[in-house]
């Protein structure tokens, strides 16, 4: 059947067709829809993991059982899951074991632009790179076969434009895979040094076999064309290159680690000029150039290779950038106009807003974390000082205190979302208590993982499929970590919020505030929009400090104005207005 699928949907479909049995993953843009779609198939056990390391380990356990297993994550998620990945690279895969990494060139919703193909190289496992949705489906299937054939985890590497572009896909049927069962084999499955030394030998042999396999692998494909220009490329870059250089000859690589050296040198020798076209880092270029260096008299080819001397390393590649790099882009006839930016903002009625309003008012140093609430850094709330990585807020606050003393703790607050706290905030909090720190953490408990599109988490009482699950309650959890000073607040109540923060920073030990109020987009219990009574409004602009997209200022009338389309009636502005000008009339 033909379907119009995104790369993520196609990966999910391919894994399903391959008979995948167990899936465990933590959401992260641009990977999230892979898990969400796998969760819809009743033949598969699929779950929301607490974090990426957990996801990879659960999938590894399933592979021990001879099941086909998959985990998926955004690129930085693999940093969290790197530890088990490297061990599994030694242990191998009894049941097909696929790790999907969705990288984010251009950083549409990420903190960095890391190229996870290097993980494949460092862990010495194969890396597959599909170039459209059809190949996403086919390679997701093939990854399981490769994994079992070569006894290795396989890295299926996507990028934002692969994950989130849609294309026409020819789908197939599911071929059931029955887990072959657990077999005790300590020499294979226990990575003590004595075993691992032998495993490493096998890993090196495996790499050689994989490189040989790549020489005849049908997806490492030569597309003959004009001999003057030969282009070596992979993934989405192939599609851009085809638009800009339609007549060139191509070597389109799909197994991008380990590389097929012979095939590459033959291709290079068959064309007059060679371009290596890839996004961000020089992953292919470095390896291909290495083939051309004379090492003890051996050299695969002697030719100039053009790659990152022309194509930018920084930022997302696209047809325009590629054309510009080679001087092929015509000047636009249209003159750009100067426009105000339109960055994302906290939604009207978002419960995070109350906390950030208070933090801004109290002029505290805020170590931040990753989630919708990172938007608390934006004007006019302006209430965030650092963001490192998921879980990095609590620990950064602690480091500030250890460096500058308890006075710093009185001026510092860490903010962390509920999903992020479960992901990697707990260990930091334990460290604070254990090492006698003084400090305050606010858990922004909006009862959901909002940023990535509203997934359930261990605190929400629902599984991936929406079935009931035990709720891990934050308050007893925090108390059992040894925190004595715990306050529960409603962040939409500005007075209570401010008072709780003042109390917490003046407490001598570790304090936690749980700011509990559900994300406005999950329950959608919107109340009627408020109106500004223009007779009462004195134009003091205090309400504008909330940074609510529904409130603006009429410069002519010198009055605040509420947009009835956006306002959901949370009444936070009304509670702030000194003249009670906001109301329902």
């Amino acid at each position: 059947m033909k379907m119009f699928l995104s790369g993520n949907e196609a990966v999910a479909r391919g894994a399903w067709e391959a008979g995948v049995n167990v899936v465990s993953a933590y959401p992260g843009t641009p990977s999230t829809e892979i898990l969400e779609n796998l969760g819809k198939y009743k033949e598969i056990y699929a779950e929301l993991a607490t974090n990426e390391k957990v996801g990879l380990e659960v999938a590894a356990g399933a592979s021990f059982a001879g099941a086909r297993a998959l985990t998926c994550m955004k690129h930085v998620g693999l940093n969290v899951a790197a530890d088990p990945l490297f061990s599994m690279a030694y242990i191998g895969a009894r049941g097909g074991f696929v790790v999907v990494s969705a990288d984010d060139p251009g950083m549409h919703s990420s903190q960095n632009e890391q190229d996870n193909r290097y993980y494949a190289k460092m862990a010495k496992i194969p890396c597959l790179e599909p170039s459209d949705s059809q190949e996403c489906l086919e390679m997701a299937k093939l990854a399981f076969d490769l994994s079992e054939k070569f006894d290795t985890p396989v890295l299926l590497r996507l990028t934002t434009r692969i994950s989130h572009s849609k294309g026409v896909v020819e789908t197939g049927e599911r071929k059931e895979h029955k887990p072959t069962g657990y077999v005790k084999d300590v020499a294979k499955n226990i990575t003590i040094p004595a075993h691992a030394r032998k495993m490493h030998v096998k890993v090196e042999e495996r790499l050689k076999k994989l490189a040989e396999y790549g020489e005849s692998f049908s997806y490492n494909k030569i597309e003959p064309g004009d001999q003057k220009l030969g282009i070596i490329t992979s993934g989405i870059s192939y599609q851009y290159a085809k638009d800009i250089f339609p007549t060139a000859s191509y070597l389109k690589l799909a197994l991008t680690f380990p590389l097929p050296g012979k095939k590459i040198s033959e291709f290079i020798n068959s064309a007059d000029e060679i371009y290596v076209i890839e996004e961000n880092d020089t992953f292919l270029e470095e390896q291909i150039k290495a083939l051309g260096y004379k090492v003890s008299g051996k050299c695969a080819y002697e030719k100039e290779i053009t790659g990152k001397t022309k194509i930018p390393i920084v930022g997302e590649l696209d047809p325009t950038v590629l054309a510009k790099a080679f001087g092929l882009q015509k000047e636009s006839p249209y003159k750009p106009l100067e426009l105000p930016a339109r960055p994302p903002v906290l939604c009207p009625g978002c419960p995070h807003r109350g906390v950030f309003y208070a933090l801004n008012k109290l002029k505290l140093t805020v170590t931040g974390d990753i989630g919708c609430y990172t938007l608390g850094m934006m004007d006019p709330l302006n209430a965030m000082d650092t963001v490192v990585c998921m879980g990095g807020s609590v620990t950064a606050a602690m480091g500030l205190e250890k460096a500058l003393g308890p006075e710093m703790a009185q001026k510092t607050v860490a903010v962390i979302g509920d999903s992020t706290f479960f992901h990697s905030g707990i260990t930091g909090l334990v460290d604070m208590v254990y090492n006698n720190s003084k400090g305050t953490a606010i858990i922004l408990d909006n009862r959901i993982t909002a940023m990535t599109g509203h997934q359930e988490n261990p605190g929400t009482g629902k599984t991936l499929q929406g079935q009931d699950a035990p709720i891990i309650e934050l308050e007893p959890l925090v108390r059992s970590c040894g925190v004595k000073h715990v306050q529960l607040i409603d962040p939409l109540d500005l007075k209570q919020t401010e008072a709780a923060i003042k109390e917490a920073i003046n407490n001598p030990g570790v304090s936690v505030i749980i700011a509990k109020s559900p994300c406005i987009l999950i329950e959608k219990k919107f109340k009627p929009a408020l109106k500004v009574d223009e007779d009462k409004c004195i134009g003091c602009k205090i309400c504008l400090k909330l940074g609510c997209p529904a409130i603006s200022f009429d410069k002519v009338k010198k009055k605040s104005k509420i947009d009835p389309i956006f306002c959901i009636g949370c009444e936070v502005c009304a509670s702030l207005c000194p003249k009670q000008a906001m109301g329902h009339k």
Partner: protein
Amino acid sequence: MKTVNILICGVGGQGVLLAGDIIAETAIASGFDAKKSEVHGMAQRGGSVVSHVRFGQKVNSPLIRQGEADVILSFEEMETARYLQFLKAGGCLIINRQQVIPMSVATGQAEYPVDVVERIKQQVKDILLCPGMELAEKSGSAKAVNTVLLGALARKLELAPGKWQEVISRRVPAKTVELNKKAFESGYSQQ
């Protein structure tokens, strides 16, 4: 046939992404290859949103190259200008008459370029200004703005109106099929 490139832009929550799906699916239902690309994640949070749709015999890149969009379908006046460089020489603009105020303007740090449509008119000849909200309300719901705009777009493309209606009926909530048909017609009759 040359690949047809349509860039759709607007603000998160306006229905840009669904419109992109419907265009691509209509092209596929008409026998073409199609690709579509957009970025999720922040789309719900009121940011600037763009979707690229391409269809033809065989489509490679899911992204449109600057200077190659045949049509820009813009849901918001100022956003049109943000993507103007994508329009090909002689290309067509369809602009929904709506202004959504960004935060920097609401707080008084920046000005909304109120004359933005006039300034675009000085540069682009082929422009259709569409009172999307008004037509959507007349059809029965303010939420059908994106269907009105699809109607306006359909007139510029050589895909059969019946195919559009077929895909729209499949993609909108069952209760709203009739209303969306009306919305599509009212957009289609705009010139």
